[in-house]
């Protein structure tokens, strides 16, 4: 036990004495969160649209007002005929055209149903999807308020995708993703690098020749980073809540459990990497390519999994961050508990055990 404590103490000394490590540990999480929260948001502002209103009645005017006053859209042109749509897209200024059918208000009143056609420039599919969602959200909102007292269900168009993000704030999407990324960065990358550093410096030789057991070395390396990662997770959740207003609707206990589980998973991945990497460079390379990119690209963090080709969708199932981000969103945004996230917990636990087992098996007590 003393041996382990001595080891952990030594690790902390390394960390606190190296300004670069400190920056990575505490500077980068904050910077990253701010970057994703403010700069790389996918919020729409002043997107240019055109409107073709065949009906031009009270209801369509109200809807148009609502759309244009939302701040997300700016009216570029009022169209009169269908054949104007194509040219205006080709000019490239307009990203979306909203078409109201003839007799819109009438149809809505009589049948409780009316049609709006939303045409978006899908050469940028993400933006197109986003614009559509925004538009749709505004229309739904309008319908809900306007016809609140109606007995017949009134329907304009009903596909709503950002149900739990009514205000469509980008940060809601990015805080869980950033957390997955940062915890992966600190836990996996830092542990693999610090073990590789010992190999590079030759100190690993001495540690191996000492009576230290593999578990001592692994635990000694992991414990400090587990603690520091937890602090980081807390910082991210706190900043997300205070600065971006991301809610924490679920129980803090469930949240903490989920975070610790994910960190443990990432740490065991880090150890696994260090068993193959003999230099810091290799460790950085592997953790950069094998962990960071999939975390960013394949976890649903930035690109919706539903929009991926089937092959990548299948692949994304093997990405631990995918399950973490999903569970995190459920807990933070929906307030779900274990009853809902147990599949994620199960999958993450299985992955953790797999990585841990593999790295304990691969961790060599000799040089070869």
């Amino acid at each position: 036990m003393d041996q382990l404590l001595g080891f952990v103490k030594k690790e902390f000394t390394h960390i606190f004495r190296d300004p670069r490590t400190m920056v990575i540990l505490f500077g980068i999480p904050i910077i990253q969160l701010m970057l994703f929260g403010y700069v790389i948001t996918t919020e729409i502002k002043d997107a240019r649209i055109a409107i073709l209103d065949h009906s031009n009645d009270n209801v369509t005017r109200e809807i148009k007002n609502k759309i244009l006053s939302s701040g997300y859209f700016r009216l570029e042109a009022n169209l009169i005929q269908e054949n104007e749509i194509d040219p205006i897209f080709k000019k490239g200024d307009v990203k979306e055209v909203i078409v109201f059918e003839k007799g819109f208000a009438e149809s809505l009143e009589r049948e409780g149903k009316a049609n709006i056609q939303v045409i978006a420039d899908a050469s940028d599919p993400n933006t197109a999807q986003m614009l559509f969602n925004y538009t749709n959200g505004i229309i739904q909102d309008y319908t809900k308020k306007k016809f609140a007292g109606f007995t017949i269900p009134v329907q304009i168009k009903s596909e709503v995708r950002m149900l739990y993000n009514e205000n469509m704030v980008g940060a809601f999407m990015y805080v869980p993703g950033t957390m997955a990324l940062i915890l992966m960065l600190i836990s996996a990358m830092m542990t693999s690098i610090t073990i590789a550093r010992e190999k590079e410096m030759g100190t690993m030789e001495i540690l191996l020749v000492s009576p230290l057991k593999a578990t001592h070395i692994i635990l000694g390396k992991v414990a400090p980073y587990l603690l520091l990662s937890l602090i980081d997770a807390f910082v991210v959740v706190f900043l997300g809540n205070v600065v971006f207003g991301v809610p924490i609707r679920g129980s803090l206990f469930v949240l903490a459990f989920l975070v610790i589980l994910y960190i443990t998973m990432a740490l065991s991945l880090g150890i696994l990497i260090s068993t193959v990497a003999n230099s810091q460079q290799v460790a950085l390379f592997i953790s950069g390519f094998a962990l960071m990119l999939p975390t960013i690209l394949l976890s649903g963090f930035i690109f919706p999994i539903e929009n991926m080709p089937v092959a990548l969708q299948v692949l994304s199932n093997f990405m631990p961050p995918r399950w973490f981000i999903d569970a995190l969103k459920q807990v933070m945004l929906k307030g779900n508990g274990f009853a809902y996230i147990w599949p994620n917990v199960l999958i993450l636990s299985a992955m953790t055990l797999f990585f841990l087992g593999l790295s304990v098996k691969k961790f060599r007590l000799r040089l070869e």
Partner: protein
Amino acid sequence: MIKVSNLEKSYGEVKALKGISLEVEKGELFGLIGPDGAGKTTLMRILVTLLLPDSGSATMDGLNVVDDFRKIRKMVGYMPGRFSLYPDLTVEENLQFFATVFGGTIAANYHLIKDIYIQIEPFKNRPAGKLSGGMKQKLALSCALIHAPKVLILDEPTTGVDAVSRKEFWEMLNKLRHQGITILVSTPYMDEANLCDRVALIQNGTILSIDSPKNITKSFAKKLFGVKVETTAQRFECVGLLKELDGIDSVFSFGESIHITSNQKDINEVNVKEYLNNKGHQGILVEKIEASIEDVFMELMQNEAN
């Protein structure tokens, strides 16, 4: 204390050890003398249980290096070839760390390291990375000793260290030996062989000779002459001339003199001097000398090559 028999080890195509056998007695200061790539490091790494041999066996204090590796790790002190301490930890923190790793304290074995550590104690709050070469060496030795090992294995501790620090280092080893610690040390510096009780000359994964330095130099079978010249320029020319002289086996620069070896009866101090005089070199001094370890080593190397 250390017993190695028929040890072999290959890295892919390269045979690092080609069947090595040696024994080191308890309390002996044993030197492995040989150039880079001779197999010294491989042998030491097998002994400290970092590598597995391909065939052959090795034991330390009766413990097998393969099966009893955990027990061996408790009783051996090891200093790898490179400086292997934490440069960002201070002198004291390094020592403290290695003491706890072995489950002990600095105080428990302070008597062992006192003589060495006292020299670097004034710098105990300095990061190890900022120490001079000689001081790093002393700290590394202190760290290897702090758990009172029965056997010390030191891989080229004096390489790249200046002559003064080297001398001090050997003095420390000598003291440790008197405290009953068995020491196996490797070095590429031939002159350091004389500081060991016994040495093994090692080259290309084979042992050329094992004995006390005295016996090894005595074993030199040929006649050996030292030729002294007056200037450096003269030396260069004389080396060339001597190489052309019949009956001379080898001509090598050796510090301030030139060493020549011969098996021929008719080669002696007088006619070698005459030969050089006739070629226009004056002030030449030729004398019959005793071989040094380096002479023997080169002779054995040449035999091996033939």
